[in-house]
């Protein structure tokens, strides 16, 4: 039994490594076309972020919002809904949180921060809940509604940070950069490693991941939520109001994305500004899938994704290739990993490969 588990782990690792290598191989062609040395580029991408305090802390700074969005996506997925509206929910969450932080700058941290997070949660939840309600009661496809709500959220967000909530200093200097005023220090998440951007948000995210795990698998509400998503007909059979649970799932999903907004505001920027999200709403979907839609899988998945982002940044600087190539390589890696899932789900294919591997192994022994 132990041996079986061991073989299984080796197999999984092997598949992921082969998938990533093949993606890098295709990426190497792109790099060659851009006249960069692929070996050097990849060396930088995967070793530099891991070899210093700056790289390591930056990975975790990225991982925190990814983890929260990923958790929200996983909750929605488990309830049978594809939430593509993470971007919009992050922005609404960020603006709700900033509003509270700017309105009560003098509250002590231990009161203000929870309030900011709750406000962000509510903001994101409203935005996600709209799509959930529309799906449940008006049969509006959630993919359509969440994407459209992203556009609306972006415009509302920009209007607020350009207009009513703009930093008064920007107005008086006449520069007009769209951002809110700096939050009072009471609303800042504490930096946990000095001289880095790493803030306590990562701890909040990990705690919430564990919380979501308990919620989904150890509570009756979580049971109903998963039942409604897994088989609506069976859920009705035991008396679960599937529509209401659909709305609940979207409320929670949006709420978690909203808290990712709060993390960026209170942890990184200390204000709401134009590029608050950096695509976390979309990357979060990949993180959730990569983590097997399981909260405890999403923790390492978001770190891996953080590494991809930070490594790509560093590679771009060191071999000076256009940023678009970096994005393309990131995309290739994600595609390769997502498509390699077939090797885990298709048992016949898996068996064939396992047998071949065993043959190779015994062949080695014969040689020696």
């Amino acid at each position, binding site marked *: 039994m132990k041996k079986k588990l061991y073989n299984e782990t080796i197999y999984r690792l092997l598949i992921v490594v082969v998938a990533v290598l093949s993606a890098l191989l295709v990426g190497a062609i792109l790099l060659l076309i851009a006249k960069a040395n692929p070996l050097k580029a990849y060396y930088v991408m995967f070793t530099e972020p891991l070899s210093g305090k700056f790289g390591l802390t930056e990975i975790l700074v990225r991982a925190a919002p990814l983890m929260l969005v990923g958790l929200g996506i996983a909750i929605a997925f488990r309830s049978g809904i594809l939430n593509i509206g993470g971007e919009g929910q992050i922005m609404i969450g960020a603006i709700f949180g900033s509003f509270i932080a700017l309105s009560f700058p003098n509250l002590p941290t231990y009161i203000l921060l929870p309030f900011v997070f709750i406000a962000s949660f509510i903001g994101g939840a409203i935005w996600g809940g709209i799509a959930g309600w529309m799906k449940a009661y008006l049969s509006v496809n959630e993919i359509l509604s969440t994407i459209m709500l992203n556009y609306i959220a972006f415009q509302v967000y920009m209007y607020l940070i350009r207009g009513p909530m703009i930093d008064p200093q920007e107005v008086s200097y006449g520069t007009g950069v769209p951002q809110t005023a700096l939050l009072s220090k009471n609303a800042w998440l504490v930096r946990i490693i000095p001289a880095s951007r790493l803030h306590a948000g990562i701890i909040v995210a990990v705690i919430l991941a564990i919380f979501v795990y308990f919620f989904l698998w*150890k509570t009756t509400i979580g049971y109903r939520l998963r039942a409604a998503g897994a088989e609506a007909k069976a859920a009705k059979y035991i*008396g679960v109001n599937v529509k209401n649970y659909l709305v609940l799932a979207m409320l929670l999903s949006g709420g978690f994305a909203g808290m990712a907004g709060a993390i960026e505001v209170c942890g990184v920027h200390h204000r709401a500004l134009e590029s608050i999200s950096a695509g976390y709403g979309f990357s979060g979907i990949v993180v959730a899938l990569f983590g097997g839609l399981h909260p405890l899988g999403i923790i390492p998945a978001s770190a891996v994704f953080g590494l991809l982002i930070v490594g790509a940044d560093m590679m771009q600087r060191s071999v000076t290739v256009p940023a678009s190539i970096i994005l393309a390589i990131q995309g290739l890696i994600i595609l390769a990993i997502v498509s390699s899932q077939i090797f885990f789900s298709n*048992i016949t294919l898996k068996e064939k490969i396992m047998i071949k591997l065993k043959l190779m192994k015994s062949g080695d022994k014969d040689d020696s």
Partner: protein
Amino acid sequence: MPEIINKLEMRKITKKFPGVLACNNIDINIKSGEIVALLGENGAGKTTLMNVLFGLYQPEHGEIFLNDKKVIINSPRTAFSYGIGMVHQHFMLVPNLTVLENVALGFISKKIFKLELNKVRTKIDEVSKEYGLSVNPDAYIWQLSVGEQQRVELIKVLCLGANLLILDEPTAALTPQETDELIVLLKEMAKKDRSIIFISHKLNEVKAVSNRVYVLRNGSLVYEGETTEHSVSTLAEKMAGREISMPILKEKSHATSPILEIKNVFAKGSMGTMALEGLSLTVGKGEIVGIAGVSGNGQKELADVINGISHIESGQILLNNENIANKAPQKIINKGMGYIPEDRMHEGTIPSFSVKENIIMKDYCKAPLSKSLFLQDKIIENYSKELINNFAIKCPDNKTACASLSGGNVQKVILARELSRKPKMLVAAYPIRGLDIGAAEYVHEQLLEARSENIGILLISEELDELLDICDRIAVIYEGKILDVLDRDIATKSKLGLLMAGIKDEKKVI
């Protein structure tokens, strides 16, 4: 056109799957004009063996001989080129294409951008005339009934020139009438020198249709012989490897007071039309009341309204003298109602959930399985293991997903859940449909056991044998009403049959 198959042999076929020997050294043969039945319980290796013949699996050992020449079949396409066609248990048809287009899909045309639809249409006409398989080539698949869809599958393989037809559990989704039609059709085909391999675990059909029978058990061939030599019960014994006797109710009911009273219920069906029109029925404590009827006469709606899954327009449903009509399903469950639904894979269980999670489906929010909002893992763990043990559910462990269990074991999960909660009343809809005989025996034993524990049971079924075996009374449902209720001592198949056709007074017909 492939050559006529005079004789096909599979010799010493062995096929292994991880951890399972699906086929162990099996020899079978078939001649032209013969109908051979492949009989066995679920998981005996019937489908695997046929998938080897159809080129879907490669065997570890063994050879296939066609007219005494060795052939290697490594894909369905090769199988078709030898004249072997297979109709799978789950139809392989595209619902939003027409019959014509579906048949055309199977043809390999030399022209890449052009479907030779006219050619295909003439071919369909030829085949349907030859065998009397009438079907409208321009109908969309989704418009057809299950029986008609099967006809399309048959036309498809015949159009492709199959001389040998493999039918994998062809009657699983058919009504009794459609089954009879199919059997006539298959015999007609055999007369025209086609060979047919008929996979099934339904003994009556095997008996009715086949010349010879092969019985498989746990991947091995355990018996081969002429069908006529054996009775249904000896075949059942060979299939299960032990004596099978479907339990029969013997003692009289002691039903004194009613547990479920349905009074003049009107309810709408999913199409929005009236499905129940003034239905009244009473079930007593410790009594099994059967509902006989051609499906679509309100059975589904009746089961749903009793369990609160859909609402009634008017009338009363009393459980233990308390009105439960239009109450929330959870409330009705808590008042002691049990329900074995018709769709055991998607309604009775959640396929992606583990056996453990499926076992607690109805009581997960009650103590001791949960306290306030928290599921009590240890108690659930022990409870599920106890039930798996008590009901002999075959599964690797309690974390296995229900989707990977056989139909019989899924039904056992549902039975275990419904009966262990000690209901006062149980609605069982088609509880043995699609199960092999060993599992069916078990289900009936459990229902009788529940009856002796004073549970009232409403048994909905289309199989009159089932109803006559274990019911105290049999009610016949026709167009949303109970036409008549017969006591078991006076109920016969012919009486029930007439009632099911809507004829209440025999004399009037004559």
